[in-house]
C-alpha cells in the first residue's frame, strides 16, 4: 500500500527484565517510513513496555526504581532509529529526534486547561511553531477547540484521548507512538479516531500503535504484529493476521 522507503525504526532483539521476570523476550520489529504499524496483544503482553522502550521512558522507570530499591530493570538489545542506537538515550533526546508518544490511558495534565496542555507539549518548539501547532491540532480535532478553556481533567475519555494524541503531535514527530488509542471508547468515537489517525499519516507521520482488539484498526494499518507474553508470535499485513485461525479467536473477536 505504501512506498517502501526503508525502515525508520528497527528494534532488534529487545529484551526487558523487570527483576527476574522477562517482560519482552527477544522482540524484533521494524517500521518503515510512512507506514502505520500495529502491535496487538492482550493485557500484559508487553505492549506498553515496548512503547516505553522505544520512547525512552523505560530509562526513567529504571532509574527511579533503582533509587528506591525496587525492581531492577534491565534493557538489552538494539533500537535503531535513523541509523543510531537509541537503547540508552534519554527520552528528551529521542523526542528531539522526532519520536512522539501518546501514553496508555492518556495521562494528560489534568489540572491545566486544554490549551495549556498543548502549550506544555510544545515545550521544544518556539512561540510561532507552538501557535501553528495548536492550530493544526484544532483542525484535526475540532472538538478540542470548543473546549480549550476547560480543565483537562473534566474532559470525557474520548476527548482526553484526542488531547493526548494532539499533545504528542505538538512535538512534530516523524514517528508517532500511540499506546492503546481506542481503549474504553465507544465505537462511534473509535471510528472517528481511526479516521484521524489516517489523516495524521497523510501528513507524513509514521505511526506505530498498540491495541488489544485489532478489528477497528484493520482498515488503516499496513502491517501488524501479534504479541503474547513478551514474544512476537506472528507478523504480517492486516489481512494475513485476520486470516490466521489461531489468532482470530483470541484477538479479533468473532
Amino acid at each position: 500500500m505504501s512506498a517502501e522507503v526503508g525502515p525508520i525504526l528497527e528494534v532488534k532483539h529487545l529484551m526487558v527484565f523487570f527483576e527476574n521476570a522477562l517482560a519482552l523476550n527477544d522482540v524484533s520489529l521494524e517500521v518503515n517510513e510512512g507506514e502505520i504499524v500495529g502491535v496487538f496483544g492482550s493485557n500484559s503482553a508487553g505492549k506498553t513496555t515496548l512503547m516505553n522502550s522505544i520512547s525512552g521512558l523505560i530509562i526513567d522507570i529504571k532509574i527511579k526504581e533503582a533509587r528506591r530499591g525496587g525492581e531492577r530493570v534491565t534493557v538489552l538489545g538494539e533500537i535503531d532509529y535513523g541509523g543510531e542506537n537509541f537503547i540508552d538515550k534519554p527520552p528528551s533526546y529521542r523526542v528531539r529526534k522526532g519520536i512522539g508518544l501518546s501514553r496508555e490511558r492518556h495521562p494528560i495534565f489534568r489540572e491545566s486547561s486544554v490549551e495549556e496542555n498543548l502549550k506544555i507539549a510544545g515545550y521544544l518548539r518556539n512561540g510561532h511553531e507552538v501557535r501553528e501547532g495548536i492550530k493544526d491540532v484544532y483542525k484535526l480535532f475540532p472538538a478540542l477547540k470548543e473546549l480549550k478553556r476547560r480543565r483537562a481533567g473534566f474532559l470525557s475519555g474520548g476527548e482526553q484521548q484526542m488531547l493526548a494524541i494532539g499533545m504528542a503531535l505538538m512535538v512534530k514527530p516523524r514517528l508517532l507512538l500511540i499506546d492503546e488509542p481506542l481503549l474504553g471508547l465507544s465505537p462511534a468515537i473509535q471510528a472517528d479516531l481511526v479516521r484521524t489517525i489516517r489523516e495524521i499519516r497523510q501528513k507524513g507521520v509514521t505511526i506505530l500503535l498498540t491495541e488489544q482488539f485489532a478489528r477497528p484498526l484493520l482498515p488503516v494499518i499496513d502491517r501488524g504484529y501479534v504479541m503474547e507474553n513478551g514474544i512476537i508470535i506472528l507478523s504480517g499485513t492486516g489481512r494475513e493476521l485476520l486470516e490466521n485461525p489461531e489468532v482470530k479467536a483470541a484477538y479479533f473477536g468473532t
Partner: protein
Amino acid sequence: MELLIYGLVNSAILAVMAIGLSLTFGVSGIANFAYGGFYILGAYTCWGLFTQLGLPYLLSVILSMAALAALGFIFYWLVFLRVRGMEISEAIASFGVGIAILEFLRWWGFIGFYYNLPGFLKGSVEIGGVFVDCHRLIIIGVALALVIFLWLFSHYTKIGLAFRGVAQEERTALSLGINSDFTAALSVAFGSALGVLAAITILPTGTILIDKGYDALLFALAVGLVGGLESTLGVLLASLILGFAQTAVAVYGATHWMMVVTLGAIIIVLAVKPSGLFGKSKELEERV
C-alpha cells in the same frame, strides 16, 4: 485605618515570604524545605557584598540572587535528584540541608545584631493619621508585583508551564521532551532566588537573624497551604487572611493571642476546605 494599613503590610510580608516556596513547592511540586536556609543565606550574602565588599546595593542584590539560584541548582543535583518522587524523603533531606545551612552560619558567628540591610527608601509618610515607613509601603508593592509575576510566569511562559507539567505527570512531560530533572532544578533555583528577594525585601524592617529562617519556612508553608498549592490567587488571599487576622488581634485584642489566632485560622480553613482555599487538584483527585 491602622488595621487597614498594617494589616496590608503584614499580609504583604507573608505573601512575599511565601512566593519563593510557592514556586518550587506549589507550582513544580518539589518540597524544597531548605527554603529557610536559602532565605537567610541570601540575606547574609547580600549583606556581605554590600557592606564588606562595598558593592552598590542593587548589584549586590542581583549578585546574591544569582549566587543562591546557582546554589539551588547545584543543590538539586546533589540532593533532590536521588530522592525525587518520595515526598517525605524530599522534605526531610532538604529540611536537613536548610538546618545545616542555618546552624553552620550560627556557628560561624553570625549572631548578634550587627547584620542589617538598608531599606530601599528611607523616611516615613503619614496616611490617614498613621505613620508608615516607606519601606513597608514598598513591600506591598513588591508583594503585588511578585504575585502578578508568579501568575504570569506559571501560566504564560514556557518554563512555567513546564514546571506545572512536571508536577502533574512527570512521565508524560518526559515523553514530550521536557527534561524533567533540568526543569525541576530550574524551579529550585528560581524559588531560591525569589527567597533571597523576599529576604532582602523583608529583613530591613528588623535585623538579619538566623531564627528568621525557620520562621520564614513555617509562614511560607502556612500561606501556601491555606491558599491551596499551585494557586497564585490563593497565596494572595491566604496571606491577606492570615495577615489581617494577626493585625486585627494585635490592634483590638491581646497581642498575646496573635499566634494562636494564626494557627487557629490555618486549622479552620483546612478543616473546612481540606485542599486549601483554591486547591484545584485535590478537588478532582484526592478529596474523598
